[in-house]
């Protein structure tokens, strides 16, 4: 197959008038001032009308929060089932799958013979938020939550999360669990013809 090549136009010709810097400067200033006026009007409208009506990209962070899509990978969280117990069975798959080896589990057995993690430690200073633990988990016990705030500490020892910190009630993680069920590495998911995307 022949390679279709497109030559870029590097010989930008300039008339004498254009070589005098003035028209380019004017044009550039018109562009920047256009952005300025549009944004200023948007900001003024926001102050007056209260409705967010601006082209400004940035947000006032602590007051406003970015919109987090359902697929977002935040801090890993352990799922606490409806009966109040963790879903985790301490099989150790996440421990193996974790590339930076930040998970360590000590497993134990309840009286009824169910396995459970006696301790589950996740070193937040080593976690790279890759989501491989979630992928490896056969029980949907560890998922990437939408936790992204206040994860930084001055002291690394404070970033070692124990089981109680990581446990979240199942209903709080419903959104993410749905994503896993519906989209996430579902080999047999056939695309419905009605959906167009």
């Amino acid at each position, binding site marked *: 197959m022949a390679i279709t090549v497109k030559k870029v136009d590097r010989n930008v010709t300039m008339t004498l008038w254009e070589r005098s810097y*003035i028209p380019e*400067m004017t044009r*550039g*200033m018109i*562009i*920047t*001032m256009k*952005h*300025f006026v549009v*944004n*200023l009007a948007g*900001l003024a409208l926001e102050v007056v009308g209260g409705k967010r009506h601006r*082209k*400004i*990209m*940035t947000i*006032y962070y602590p007051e406003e929060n970015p919109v987090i899509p359902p697929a977002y990978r935040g801090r890993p969280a352990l799922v606490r089932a409806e009966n109040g117990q963790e879903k985790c069975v301490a099989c150790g798959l996440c421990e193996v799958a974790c590339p930076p080896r930040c998970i360590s589990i000590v497993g134990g057995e309840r009286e009824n013979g169910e396995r459970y993690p006696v301790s589950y430690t996740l070193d937040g200073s080593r976690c790279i938020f890759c989501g491989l633990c979630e992928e490896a988990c056969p029980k949907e016990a560890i998922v990437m939550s939408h936790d992204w705030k206040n994860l930084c500490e001055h002291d690394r020892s404070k970033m070692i999360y124990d089981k109680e910190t990581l446990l979240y009630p199942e209903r709080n993680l419903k959104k993410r669990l749905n994503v896993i069920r519906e989209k996430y590495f579902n080999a047999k998911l056939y695309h419905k013809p009605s959906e167009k995307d």
Partner: protein
Amino acid sequence: MGIAEMIETIVKIGFIIGLTIGFFAPMLAWVERKQSAVMQDRIGANRADFFGFTVIGLLHSLADAIKLIFKEDFIPRGAERALHTLAPVIAVIPSLIAFAVIPFGGKYTLWGHEVNLVIADLDVGVLYVFAISSLATYGVVIAGWASNNNWSLLGGLRASAQMFSYEVAMGLTVIGLIMFYQSLSMVDIVAKQDNFFHWGIIWHWPAFVLFLACAVAENKRVPFDAPEAEAELVAGYFTEYSGMKFVMFWTAEFIEMVTIAGLCVALFFGGHHVPFITDAELAGGFSFLGPNVSNLVAMLIGVGVFIFKLVALLILQMTIRWTMPRFRYDQIMKLGWKMILPLSLTWIFIVGVGILTGVMPSP
């Protein structure tokens, strides 16, 4: 000099210093942040607050001042201590005293006392401005040399070469204007622009473009900021400055911006004059208030118009700064010597011919 003149001069100096250091320097810092932010689809600095009031980021100038005052004044080892300390002072003073000859209003008679709204009505005002602005070079060169840093040295070298060459061109750009108004006194030049059709910008707009380019180059702002290009020379001549010394360089830049704008207003935009209205007509419009009060009102309007024009030119400078990329150092020199200098010489010739043939009627 009577006691009244003394008081008058002190008030005027106070007004100018208050206007430049007290008002424009912090305001320009704010405008530079906010205007660029809005231009770039951002919000800009708005976090410094006083009991929850942010005043759309205005308090950042205050916060900066407090922070920089308490910052360590660092002098690198091997630096020339005395010169290192002296350099920012030398940089900041000329930009401030150049304002002495720029009239920010006209002549008004108030209660039998004639007030001339300029600190020093020098007969050679234009020459004085150029003489003073060339002094600013020393601050920069000394800063570059005394820091004992290679980047500073390179910045100082670039700055000295650039400022010297653009001084020549800048001086020549206004020669045509001086020929046109037949005076070297700033007050005279402004007084002769009372008719809108005698404004410098009408007859001398090419000179204005050249003058503005030279002035921005003198001030070392983008696109002529090769001496302090942060991507090339870290920060150029003030790499090794911190705390209040850094603030002085920074203030000098802002004051010089105001001075440039003031010069442009006085030379090209009719100073305090409102278009199509002379001072006498303006005062006459308020004659029902009595002669003294009407003169006072005319004076206030004049100063207001001057400041309005000043702000417009400052915003123009700001917009240029945030729009343009930076020249390369040798291109700056080429532009100065090979483009602006011949063009300004040509312009002098054209003005001369125009005045001789009567095409350009001298007011």
